[in-house]
């Protein structure tokens, strides 16, 4: 029974097919500015940004067990960082997006140190308090319009790219690059040692601790990574909107409720879940948006129904039947047949 007779594989036939298909879809998305109209391109950009937010929230809640209802804190922080850095710092907007990510990560550290003192559901509401603090502070910054907000100056907007079409295409490509980056980071984290620790924590925190995993540090690292990337996504969201106000930037409905619904409907704790969820969410939105508030009532009911009847979401239902996995994350021990 020597160890060399066994090896560990992470990929499967399904994951290799999915990777190929994924590359084809990615190529089509890269070329989108050449085949999609302006409104379709905007919608695609929005979908990609929501995919990023949902995947990040899923990493936080589904893997690290940090159920936050306050990620709007980082979305808003990123947005305000973009506006502050471009208007007062004179930074190029694209550089400012990266800087917003760095700021998000730096801010996430003291925030984590404080709210990690709260457990479980109280942690969740603690994150919301944090977001409220950020919103109220933003409303006090009169240089950025105080409570009523401000628009991105024309000079800054023009520095993104020349002409409206080029600008919209750049903004879309940035959203696409962000979504790819987010998925790549999540994939890399989950395949690493840290990811293995994370999966262990997700499955049983007590058992994971007894195996010597430093739970606090693992969670802290994830919280900071997610905070940084969420702030960068937030910067991109408001680079697309070109206007920011405290209520829009720190909206619990837009940046947390919808994101949670996406993850829950798609399947929490899987990388595939948010992708499925975001597709379902936008299909529902595009068909039901005319109903206004009724649409949100339907969405809330749908999410409650999924949580009660199929707590693992749509992707969980697929996996219960076929055990398929599109991202090569699970480790399997395979016996070597030849020697």
């Amino acid at each position, binding site marked *: 029974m020597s160890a060399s007779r066994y090896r560990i594989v992470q990929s499967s036939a399904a994951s290799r097919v999915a990777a190929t298909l994924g590359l084809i879809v990615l190529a089509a998305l890269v070329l989108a500015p050449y085949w999609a109209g302006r409104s379709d391109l905007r919608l695609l950009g929005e979908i990609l940004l929501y995919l990023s937010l949902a995947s990040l929230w899923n990493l936080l*809640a589904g893997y690290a067990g940090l*159920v936050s*209802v306050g990620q709007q804190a980082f979305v808003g922080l990123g947005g305000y960082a973009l506006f502050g850095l471009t208007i007062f710092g004179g930074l190029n907007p694209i550089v400012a997006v990266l800087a917003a990510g760095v700021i998000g990560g730096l801010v996430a550290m003291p925030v984590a140190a*404080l*709210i990690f*003192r*709260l*457990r*479980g*559901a*109280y942690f*969740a*509401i*603690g994150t*919301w*308090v944090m977001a*409220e*603090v950020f919103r*109220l*502070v933003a*409303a*006090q910054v009169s240089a950025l319009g105080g409570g009523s907000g401000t628009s991105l100056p024309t000079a800054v907007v023009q520095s993104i790219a020349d002409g409206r079409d080029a600008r919209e295409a750049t903004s879309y490509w940035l959203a696409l690059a962000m979504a790819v980056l987010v998925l790549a980071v999540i994939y890399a984290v989950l395949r690493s040692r840290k990811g293995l620790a994370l999966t262990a924590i997700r499955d049983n925190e007590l058992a994971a601790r007894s195996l010597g995993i430093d739970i606090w540090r693992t969670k802290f690292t994830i919280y900071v990574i997610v905070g940084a990337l969420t702030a960068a996504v937030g910067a991109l969201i408001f680079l697309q909107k070109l206007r920011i106000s405290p209520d829009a930037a720190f909206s*619990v*409905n837009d940046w947390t*409720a919808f994101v*949670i*619904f996406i993850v*829950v409907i798609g399947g*929490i704790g899987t990388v595939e879940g948010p992708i499925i969820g975001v597709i379902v969410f936008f299909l529902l939105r595009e068909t039901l948006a005319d109903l206004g*508030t*009724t649409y*949100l*009532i339907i*969405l*809330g*009911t749908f*999410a*409650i129904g999924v*949580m*009660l009847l199929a*707590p693992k979401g749509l992707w969980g239902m697929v996996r219960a039947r076929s055990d398929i996995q599109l991202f090569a994350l699970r480790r399997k021990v395979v016996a070597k047949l030849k020697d």
Partner: protein
Amino acid sequence: MDWLNAIVQGCLLGGLYALFAAGLSLIFGVMRLVNIAHGDLIVLAAYLGLTVTGALGLHPLMSLLIVIPAMALIGYVLQRGILNRTIGDDLLAPLLVTFGLSVILQNGLLEVFSADPQKMNAGALETASIPVGGITLGVLPVLMFLTAVGVIAGLQWMFYHTALGRAFRATSDNQAIAQLMGLNRAHVFGLAMALALAVTGIAGVFLGIRTSFDPSIGGGRLIFGFEAVIIGGLGNLWGTLLGGIILGVSQAVGAQINPGWQLLAGHIAFLVLLAVRPKGLFPRMDG
């Protein structure tokens, strides 16, 4: 004198926050459930009060006779119908389901009552005041504060001196054994939620008399209640009252310094206390 006045008014406002928090504290104590829709249920109670006063021409305080039983009934049905299915080791399910409820309630209220701010008219009660020393106490804030003290004393008595309270404490300590002793867990939880929402009914009606309200303000009320619970210490009802008072005073003092800092001062007081005393001032149970 302005400062003393701010502190006294803040204390009285703390009574309202304690009313927001008492229901939250009760259901957490009994079933470890944190209800994200709690604030929206407070707003729902305010709208119920508004509808009852409008339809029957009653004084807002008299509307409590209908609002309290109605909220209790909603609580029992909500718990037995939906929330009991989410109770278990998994924290995520109750959190996400109550988040969904919150969105449904908010948009349901928006559909029926529109986004226009509403307010209940309590007539002379709103402006009546008693001069005490150099400051003037509004009758309404004093009434709110005394109600909060009464509600918390009542809950405390119920918890430690009645059969229902014993059932609550038993289920809180160990659900499985309470079940073996012949308690119906689902029913006990239903009653706990009914009681919690009865208190929420009182909080909602007072909220609606004190300030104008609209469907979107639920989240803010949830946060105030939550802060009061954490500051006071989990599972300690008198602590919750003290938490409400600390929050109210911080806000009043903040507003005294700069009107824009009112809410911010309350949140910062909460965060400072969290940093210094993570378990709250007088904790009775672990989170």
